[in-house]
């Protein structure tokens, strides 16, 4: 079976420090996977490796059965994988609408065209407008991205990520820094805009994790020590020992109603 | 043989002068991420201030006071202008140093005029520090100081004697540069402020959160870098020439040095300075062209081709562009520079 995302013995060292020490993962198409783990486990590094921001030291990364380790970020993006960033990474001096429109341009094949006008690209404009509505950012359509509130910027961040219609979406701590009410609204948003896609998200909030994910991968010291449905992961003794064995996590999970 | 030795020494001294300048530039760039476009202007101001003080109080006071004046100017600029622009990003920082270079050039021309001024080295440094006497029968001798005229001329036509003096100014340049190098190294590795600077070189925010007054350190480093440039200016201005265009001539070369050596690497700046200094000095002294090289290989070209300027160009004429050629090549094949850690 061809997995949407597959990691085989992935390793990454920065100088002498090995951050990812042989990570194995196989995510089927359409699955929603939450990656959890203690701080410093290497979750963001994993995303950086998959999306091509860093090169792997050894091991394989496959996207829909095709090897993507060693490819440049834009090559990987063109193959249908998109990612968001933990620290908001948007186009600060463009308006919200322009941000989204930039995100759709390549996927619609407009490439480096300087002989067509943006105003005339009906499909791009429609897609950007649809995205704008889905993200509930219509009111801020022409506001410069740097003038948005934090939560709006996070929404825009996700918007740019999914704008290109990628089938595999990586979200790096999408709800970082949000209040409780903002978080629950945001989770609804994420669920809406990623229906039918393969989703990998790094999260710390257990409520989000248990509410959003079909499966959970636990990353500890650069290795995936468990990858299973939430209930199984909670019961896993290795995981309990490394990460979930805390009153706080239990309480958050209980709140989420599991 | 003596040609090689003297040229080598000249090249080394020029390279060390370049290093005096590029070390300050590298320090400023490494710490603050600002490529100081006005660095060569500090060099120029040092020369002119040194000249003015020398006229009033003598060369040696000038050598001490001028760098301090320039350092103060640099620190003041950092505090009142550069700091304000820091929050706008790297491009505005580069722009403000660019603007400063313009203003300093105009001010220098305003105060001292548009033509070169006679900045003489002091009495002590006017002669050669040693002279190489190469006689075709006796071999090579080294004579301290100047060789008497009698030694350099040979009555006998069969005996060829060549006297090559090595100017004291150049020797002094090397001496000061080496002293400065050692002092810099000692300060960075042995003192506490040096430790702070070293860490702020790569992790300024971390250093600030540890309680060190990083803005003040920046001001000190910028001022010190400017002061070093000023010191180089006093020496370079008295050895070579003191004129408004001295900033432009040496300015682009030190940028090449910094990029070739690797942005942010002092060792790289040192290697690149010596390399470029020696290369240029030799190139200027050599009169070979592609045409003459071909000729010595036995290939003669037609009259029309021989007249073509590209082939007739001697190495000496091409010498000025060698650093830039080097720059472009390095950027194509080894963009991090020889020893670079940052990519700017």
């Amino acid at each position: 079976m061809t997995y949407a995302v597959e990691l085989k013995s992935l390793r990454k060292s920065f100088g002498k420090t090995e951050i990812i020490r042989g990570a194995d993962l196989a995510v089927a198409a359409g699955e929603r996977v939450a990656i959890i783990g203690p701080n410093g486990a290497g979750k963001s590094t994993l995303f950086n490796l998959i999306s091509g921001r860093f090169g792997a030291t050894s091991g394989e990364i496959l996207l829909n059965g095709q090897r993507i380790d060693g490819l440049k970020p834009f090559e990987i993006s063109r193959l249908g994988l998109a990612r968001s960033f933990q620290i908001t990474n948007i186009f600060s001096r463009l308006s919200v609408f322009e941000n989204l429109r930039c995100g759709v341009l390549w996927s619609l094949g407009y490439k480096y065209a300087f002989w067509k006008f943006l105003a005339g690209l009906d499909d791009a404009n429609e897609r950007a407008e649809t995205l704008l509505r889905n993200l509930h950012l219509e009111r801020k359509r022409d506001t410069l991205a740097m003038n948005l509130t934090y939560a709006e910027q996070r929404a825009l961040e996700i918007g740019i990520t999914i704008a290109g219609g990628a089938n595999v979406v990586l979200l790096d701590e999408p709800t970082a820094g949000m209040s409780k009410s903002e978080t629950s609204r945001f989770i609804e948003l994420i669920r809406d805009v990623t229906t039918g896609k393969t989703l990998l998200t790094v999260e710390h909030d257990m409520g989000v994790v248990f509410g959003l994910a079909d499966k959970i991968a636990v990353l500890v010291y650069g290795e995936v020590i468990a990858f299973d449905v939430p209930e199984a992961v909670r019961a896993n003794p290795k995981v309990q020992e490394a990460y979930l064995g805390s009153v706080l996590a239990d309480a958050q999970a209980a709140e989420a109603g599991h | 043989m003596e040609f090689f030795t003297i040229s080598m020494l000249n090249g080394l001294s020029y390279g060390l002068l370049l290093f005096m300048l590029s070390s300050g530039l590298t320090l400023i760039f490494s710490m603050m991420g600002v490529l100081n476009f006005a660095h060569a202007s500090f060099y120029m101001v040092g020369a002119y201030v040194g000249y003015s003080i020398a006229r009033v109080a003598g060369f040696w006071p000038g050598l001490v006071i001028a760098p301090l004046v320039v350092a103060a100017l640099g620190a003041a600029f950092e505090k009142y202008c550069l700091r304000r622009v820091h929050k706008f990003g790297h491009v505005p920082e580069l722009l403000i140093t660019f603007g400063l270079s313009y203003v300093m050039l105009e001010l220098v021309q305003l105060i001292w005029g548009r033509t070169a001024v006679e900045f003489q080295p002091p009495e002590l440094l006017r002669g050669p520090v040693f002279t190489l006497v190469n006689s075709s029968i006796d071999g090579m001798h080294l004579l301290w100081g100047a060789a008497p005229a009698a030694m350099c001329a040979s009555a006998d036509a069969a005996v060829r004697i060549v006297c090559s003096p090595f100017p004291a100014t150049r020797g002094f340049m090397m001496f000061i540069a080496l002293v400065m190098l050692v002092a810099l190294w000692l300060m960075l590795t042995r003192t506490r402020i040096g430790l702070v600077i070293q860490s702020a070189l790569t992790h300024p925010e971390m250093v600030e959160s540890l309680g060190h007054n990083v803005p003040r350190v920046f001001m000190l480093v910028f001022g010190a870098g400017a002061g070093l440039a000023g010191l180089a200016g006093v020496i370079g201005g008295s050895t070579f020439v003191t004129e408004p265009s001295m900033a432009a001539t040496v300015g682009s070369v030190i940028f090449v040095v910094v990029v070739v050596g690797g942005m942010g690497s002092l060792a790289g700046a040192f290697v690149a300075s010596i390399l470029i200094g020696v290369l240029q000095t030799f190139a200027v002294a050599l009169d070979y062209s592609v045409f003459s090289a071909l000729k010595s290989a036995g290939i003669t070209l037609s009259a029309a081709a021989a007249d073509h300027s590209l082939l007739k160009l001697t190495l000496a004429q091409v010498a000025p562009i060698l650093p830039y050629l080097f720059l472009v090549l390095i950027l194509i094949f080894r963009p991090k520079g020889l020893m670079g850690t940052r990519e700017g």
Partner: protein
Amino acid sequence: MTTTSSARRFGALGPRDLIIWGVFALVLLVAPLVFSSGLAVTMLSQIGIAIVACLSFNMLLGQGGMLSFGHAVYSGLGSYVAIHALKAAGDGSFPVPVSLVPLVGGIAGLGFAVLFGFVTTKKSGTTFAMITLGIGELVFAAALMIPEFFGGEAGVSANRVVGKSASGITYGPQIQVYYLLALYTIVCTALMYAFTRTPLGRMLNAVRDNPERVEFIGYNTQRVRYISFIVAGFFAGVAGGMYALNFEIATFEVVGAGRSGLYLLFTFLGGATFFFGPIIGAVLMVVAFVLLSEFTKAWLLYLGLVFLLMVMYAPGGIASLIMMNLRVAKFGKLGRLVGWYALLGVTGFLAFCGIAAIIEMVYHLQLNESLGPVLRFMGVELNAKSAASWIGALALGGIGYGLFELTRRRFAAQWGEVQGEIAAAIRAQEGA
């Protein structure tokens, strides 16, 4: 099919934009009739050239975030190729119509941008700036080394009057050249404006704002920069060709670092963050060079100081100052600030007079020794050797600066208030 107002939401041009372009065309058409002296027409021609050059420079700086210290390479090489083409047209070896000579320059600029641009755009930021500096120095030095092409110190000259054309236009008189250059100016401006509304133009902006993110939405950042660099090189070459046509000569300083620096200085002064900023900068450049230099020898110094102040206090240039105040006016609050502006103007002028008097006196001592120590400054007689003049100037400068600072702080407070009110008004609008 979307309605006009809907299409405008996506960036299509509406009636207001057409009016602005119409006015621009009208101004270009009518200017030499209003300012009809020989000097004026020459200046207007130069302004046209400068507009194209500065706009092409801003494609890199303002739109792409690429700071180039060597843009004169492309306009300069365009000038050289164009002047050779003009010469060839004159002696019949290359029958290109004189009116198309700027285009030849453009193609040359494009070619060299293809050649040098690949290496140049490999890097960004400070390294990019250094590469452009290096290539600029390389070409400048080469210009003196290859006299066959560059004509050595004397440069290359040609005659733009190449014989009679069917329409009777010879391009001999300056006014004919002006209208040709004006045509090129408006066409090039329109094309460069159009570029900003294309996918590549927009992605260039994205690369400016966040070059890393661009890679994650499918675009090769270096490719975006390289292609834009080539387009900018083309228009720079056209400006160079216009220059060759106008001055009938190309000398080595057209590829020099000095010229590149001027593009930077004036584009930035005009305002790199708005499309029309460089146009303002271009006008300033020609006016400063031709007129200001007549008034005072220290004009480059004043310019440098203004540039420094701009970088510190108004990094968006004159264009941004205009736009900020237009915004305030839109909300009806400009009236409150007018008085403060007037006060700032008066106090600033006082400070300027004091400082300028000192600068002029120093220049006078420096340059005009033979004329004696007395000089006229703004209608007042100053004696460069008398303490009274110096003290007076210093006092004026000091007091003026002090007053200016006081006024500036009050103004800043007012400005802050106004901005706060505007922000509240916007929030109210959005909430509704």
